[in-house]
């Protein structure tokens, strides 16, 4: 079994005065694709932001590649090899597509080249000199994923990459995520869309009220479907 790449233990986090995470525990092994499932407000996005170090106050332990990152600034964490694709996508309107793609600096060798990324997302190549925010929602999502593939990061944090997209685009993003996994990327995916998550992930962690309450392997999803539906309220 592969080594543990990310180990989160007893993670608590706050937004200002409100206490969002109350002790989150889970781990991801190198090369795995793991999802965080849960209803709105369960703390999935907050968990990703805590791992990335962009939250004001957090305690507990987040070990990446056996290095404790809980006290580090987010630029330092990024340079260890973690890359983040936020829910709101974060495409820069004052940068064109190509500049957006080249913005995140390379932190390690082993990332995709610009040519490989454009081969993966031919739409982006066609529109490389357009303003980033003039793209369609699907194209912006592809840009947001594409630009973190160049940096050489081993762990990708993807926050709801399928949100608000047409089924055909969701399918395309699913293919891309599977390709990334086969290339050896380790991926932590936050999803509302369980049916999408079930088709791509190895394991699922279920979050509720700032805790991880359950873990289901993809091979057991069929047996656990009733339980999962209760958790997710679908």
């Amino acid at each position, binding site marked *: 079994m592969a080594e543990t790449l990310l180990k989160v233990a007893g993670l608590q986090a706050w937004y200002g005065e409100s206490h969002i995470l109350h002790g989150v525990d889970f781990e991801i092994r190198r090369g795995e694709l793991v999802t965080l499932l849960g209803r709105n407000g369960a703390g999935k996005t907050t968990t990703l932001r805590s791992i*990335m170090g962009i939250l004001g106050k957090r305690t507990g332990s987040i070990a990446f590649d056996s290095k404790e990152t809980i006290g580090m600034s*987010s630029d330092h964490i990024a340079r260890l090899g973690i890359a983040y694709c936020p829910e709101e996508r974060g495409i*820069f309107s*004052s*940068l064109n597509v190509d500049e957006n793609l080249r913005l*995140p*600096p390379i932190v390690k060798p082993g990332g995709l080249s610009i040519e490989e990324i454009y081969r993966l997302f031919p739409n982006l190549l066609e529109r490389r000199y357009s303003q980033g925010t003039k793209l369609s929602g699907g194209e912006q999502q592809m840009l947001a994923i594409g630009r*973190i593939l160049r*940096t050489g990061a081993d762990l990708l944090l993807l926050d709801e990459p399928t949100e608000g997209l047409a089924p055909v685009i969701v399918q395309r993003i699913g293919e891309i995520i599977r390709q990334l996994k086969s290339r050896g990327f380790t991926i932590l995916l936050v999803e509302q869309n369980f049916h999408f998550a079930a088709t791509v992930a190895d394991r699922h962690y279920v979050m509720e009220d700032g805790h991880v309450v359950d873990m289901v392997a993809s091979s057991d999803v069929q047996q656990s479907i009733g339980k999962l539906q209760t958790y997710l309220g679908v």
Partner: protein
Amino acid sequence: MFELLGIPPQALFGQLLLGLINGAFYAMLSLGLAVIFGMLNVINFTHGAQYMMGAFAAWLLLGILGIPFWVSLVVAPVIVGLFGIVLEKVLLKRIYHLDHLYGFLLTFGLALVIEGLFQWKWGSSGAPYPNPIPGGFNLGFMFLPTYRAFVVVAALVICLATWYGIERTRLGAYLRAATENPTLVRAFGINVPRLITLTYGLGVGLAALAGVLAAPIQQVSALMGVNLVLVVFAVVVIGGMGSIMGSIVTGFGLGLIEGLTKVFYPPASNTVIFVVMALVLLIKPAGLFGQTK
């Protein structure tokens, strides 16, 4: 010689040249302000004092060490820029999370302190700085002093170089991105606090560079930046807060408008820029080149 609406051409072109030179300074100063505002979200009211410090640095370098103008053109902005970096590290960075008003009070107070100290040490009458390129050309309709022509060209080069650096280079892309979403840029592994410090140093250095260029034209005096900075704020507002090209175009444009007003209706020349500002804000509240968020 021909006349235009009863105005002798010497007066017209003389004022246009003066307007162009003033515009060159407006452009260089508002450019630095725009860059600083975009990144720090602080309106740098110390800008006029830092412009004055650039002129003083050149004057002191010449007077004490005999360092010529052309060397000061590089050295003085670096010295004042480093002073700006210290200021950012020690004071400014503590107020980013507070309301704009605190940034205004801090930078305005700093300007008063700095100008007060210079006034106390060197008085307010001012000292002359020798013209590094005396002489000029007779263009037939007017006399063009060589140094003044040089200032206009130098300001254009500085403005366009700054524009290129911000709009067309990798470091500039970091700057633009961090202006929009500093948290995300930092989460990509870029040291945003250092980028902010460098931006302030660069903006202050630009003000000082304008100050060095102004030294041979104006008296080097502690209060030389006080009146200028008011006009420059108007330029930034008209051009659109944070817009680089807006600052450049508006700076030169308003210098010319001011010059023309001096020819056709002199009493209005001190207020025309503020009239333009009021009109622009009525029609386009975000400024001519500004983007509403």
